[in-house]
């Protein structure tokens, strides 16, 4: 179990306002603490490096912030610890 490892320590966050962490290494399944959300989440599948993991809850239609700016909006409810990618994030352009 990885309860003492925070998701934020495994990725990079450019701005403190970011809703996502970008992984610097593959994330193996396990329990991880999410500092931003003050909770532990269970990751059930390997998430590859370079992918985004949510560190905040997002509602449908809410902008997703990365680099301190919106990179699109949520097309589904997004839970802390979930991958954020084409299935739940769409461009606003």
């Amino acid at each position, binding site marked *: 179990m990885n309860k003492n490892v925070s998701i934020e320590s495994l990725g*990079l966050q450019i701005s403190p306002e970011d809703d996502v962490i970008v992984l*610097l290494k593959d994330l193996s399944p396990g329990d991880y603490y999410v500092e931003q959300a003050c909770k532990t989440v269970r990751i059930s599948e390997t998430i590859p490096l*370079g992918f*985004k993991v949510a560190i905040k809850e997002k509602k449908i239609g809410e902008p997703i912030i990365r*680099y301190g700016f*919106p*990179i699109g909006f949520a097309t589904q409810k997004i839970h802390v610890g979930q991958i954020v*990618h084409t299935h739940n994030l769409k*461009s606003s*352009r």
Partner: protein
Amino acid sequence: MNSMSLTGYSRGKKKGIRNHVILVSSVGCVNAMVEQVCSQERDVIPVLHPNGCGHLHEEAELVLKTLAGTCNNPNVGGVVVLGLGCESITSEQVAAKVDSGPEFNRYVEFFDLQKIKEDVVPFIRGKVRAIKEKVEKIPCVPINWSDITIGLECGGSDIFSGISANPATGLVSDYLVSQGGRVILSEVPEMIGAEEALCQRVKDAELRKVIYQKTQRYIDLAKKHGQDLIGSNPTPGNIKSGITTIEEKSLGCILKGGSSEIIDFLDYADKPSQTSGLFLMDTPGNDVESLTGMAAGGAQVALFTTGRGTPAGHPIMPVIKISSNSRVMKNMAWAIDVDAGKVLEGSSLDSAAKDIITALTQTCSLIPTKAERNRCYNFAISRLSPLT
């Protein structure tokens, strides 16, 4: 890093970090003769391109402006322009626009092949050597960061570019501006989706409108030719690697410009004012065309981030290559100068930025980059800019 160790050359009011002698084609037809002379005079740099004739009016103006701007870059001490004699952009026209004479520490000559009565290659070689003799006497002087304009570029980007190399380069851009220098961010297609982030650093309302106009122009130009710039970005390769939207991709690109106020949006090959700050330049995403535009605008050095690796350089503007990951540094060490990939292993962005500043200091102290050592003299003038 203080600027005490920076060394360069005085060119009128500007300072260069090199003292190049260049042999420039005014038209593509003469390229082979330029190549032959430069293969015999190895320290004379060829500036080759396929342009110079048969252009629409606006294109011809841009070609002349870019050639002249390249010759007037402060890194250039000697210019021989070689033309044919019947082309639209003549060698004389190019030479007339070059600031020359002892006060500029720059010497220029021009010749047309059709008028040379003797053996062409020995003749031009003689002329080039005469210019070299004058240029070799130009002394080095100390220079400061405030004399420097950096051109920024990314090419062969990967998913790590927005995580390591680009943000580290952004810190360097901020540092240079804090020391009185200028930074140019180009490649308009890579600003699509990041306009709001750029606008937040623009005081002038008109300039904010210009940013949106410039990106829209590329979107419309592509649409006119049946291409959807927004719909095709990110690419399938980007998506497979984790980049989800065009906003995300472009925000990752513009990171290399740092966080300074944006002063102006320059046309292709235009020179920034001497105010320190961040300038945008209207160039296409093509690496070589973008580097060419910034060098013609007077940038003395370029910071070029890459994820997959590229040897691209420029005839007179040293290009410092910064890898986003250590694997490409290992595989292409002959082409890469700095590895920002250490960020992926836990090093701070500040530490990677310091490495880039070290490389920048060395380059601005007469030490050649890998692209210079490899004689990568890529040169291409944008044909897109004036046509829309």
